[in-house]
């Protein structure tokens, strides 16, 4: 083997190791013991917009207008690295001229060398800005989800706490609570899983379906299509459930011959309003309740505060008539 062969061999070995370094997607630097750059990878040069010539031989902190002279990085290299063989994913946040504020994960490894005690360092720099931003967005989303979940639990708590327990058996309490709970859940399903698709007629049919069997029961007269927004769907589901359970306990649905007619129309006044009528007949004589319980307050409050409308309950001799008048704009 002559000198030229040896040179060629060495050269191809060098070229290969350089091309390995240049193929690694993460920016890499090899530093000597004084933190001067021995090798810079192609990815380092393109990521930080520098040429290899102006990089090699320079002190790390002198590179590119001292953009790497960062206190956090200095601490890593001066204090942490000398005491350990490797530091992985040390986070450095910094404003880099040209590429802006970035979060870099810096890893430092002492260069592996079988023969000598080598003090060179292999520094890899991973741009984690996008990943960190994604993680931060995910945190915000999770926080929002947690907040909504706690709100939903508070709604369930309200139903559990306000459903009457006094004078009832455990079973009766459970059934009354679960009835409201189901109305809440079904309202939530209709409001949020098929957003934008629910219409007043669908909400009525779905909520009143258990009471609509046979000749007696609840009959829905079709009115004009009224698309409903999520919150009004939730409120109306709860309101209708209260009306139906009351009818079942005290009103028209408490006897086999009793009937409820539900109908609605739009008053084309300015502003237009929706008039929803719940009309009971064929039941026992009804009288206004002595005290207004949670159910009554729920209806009144939902209509007034949530939907901006008003409700009239008329205890007629023929049966209870409830008229709910809502501004059309507030239900969509």
């Amino acid at each position, binding site marked *: 083997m002559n000198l030229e062969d040896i040179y060629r061999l060495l050269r191809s070995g060098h070229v290969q190791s350089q091309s390995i370094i240049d193929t690694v997607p993460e920016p890499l630097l090899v530093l000597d013991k004084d933190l001067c750059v021995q090798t810079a990878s192609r990815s380092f040069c393109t990521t930080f917009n520098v040429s290899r010539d102006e990089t090699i031989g320079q002190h790390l902190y002198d590179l590119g207008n001292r953009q790497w002279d960062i206190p956090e990085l200095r601490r890593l290299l001066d204090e942490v690295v000398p005491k350990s063989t490797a530091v992985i994913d040390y986070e450095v946040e910094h404003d880099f001229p040209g590429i802006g504020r970035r979060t870099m994960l810096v890893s430092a490894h002492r260069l592996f060398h079988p023969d000598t005690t080598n003090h060179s360092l292999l520094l890899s720099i991973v741009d984690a800005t996008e990943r960190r931003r994604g993680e931060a967005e995910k945190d915000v989303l999770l926080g929002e989800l*947690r*907040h909504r979940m*706690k*709100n939903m*639990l*508070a*709604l*369930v*708590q*309200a*139903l559990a*706490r*306000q459903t009457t327990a006094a004078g009832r058996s455990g079973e009766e309490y459970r059934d009354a609570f679960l009835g409201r709970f189901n109305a809440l859940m079904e309202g939530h399903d209709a409001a949020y899983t098929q957003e934008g698709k629910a219409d007043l007629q669908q909400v009525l049919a779905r909520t009143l379906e258990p009471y609509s069997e046979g000749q007696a029961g609840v009959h829905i007269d079709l009115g004009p299509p009224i698309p409903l927004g999520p919150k009004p769907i939730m*409120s109306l589901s*709860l309101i209708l459930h209260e009306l139906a359970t009351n009818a079942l306990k005290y009103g028209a649905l408490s006897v086999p011959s009793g009937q409820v007619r539900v109908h609605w129309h739009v008053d084309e006044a300015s502003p237009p309003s929706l008039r929803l009528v719940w009309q009971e007949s064929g039941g026992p004589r009804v009288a206004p309740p002595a005290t207004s319980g*949670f159910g009554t*307050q*729920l209806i009144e*409050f*939902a209509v007034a*505060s*949530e939907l901006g409308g008003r409700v009239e309950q008329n205890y007629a001799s023929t049966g209870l008539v409830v008229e709910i008048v809502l501004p059309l704009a507030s239900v969509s």
Partner: protein
Amino acid sequence: MRTVLIVEDEFLIAIDLKLLLERFGWSVFGPAATIVEALKLLDVELPAVALLDVTLKDGAVTPVAEALRARNVPFVVASAYDRPELVGGDVLIGAPNVGKPTEQRRLLATLEQLVSC
């Protein structure tokens, strides 16, 4: 008479808090679902204490909290947020948060404590 202003825009929770506090002898102002409503109620009569949700239909409860602070009415926050001040501003710092869902004993004890001092 122990009076409390409830500011809460979720109607089920608002009725729950109202009925709960009335059951324990409180006289309830509101519930107000909006900043505008709450401020209107404060112009009529000042409560001994207020119970505030953080996000209302017309924005964060901050102006209500500021109005209460200006009139020396103590307030309690009932929020699902761990740090309500991040949403409602610095005026909420130091106000007790009874949480949401709201545990009955904690709510009653906190209100009692605020009106007795």
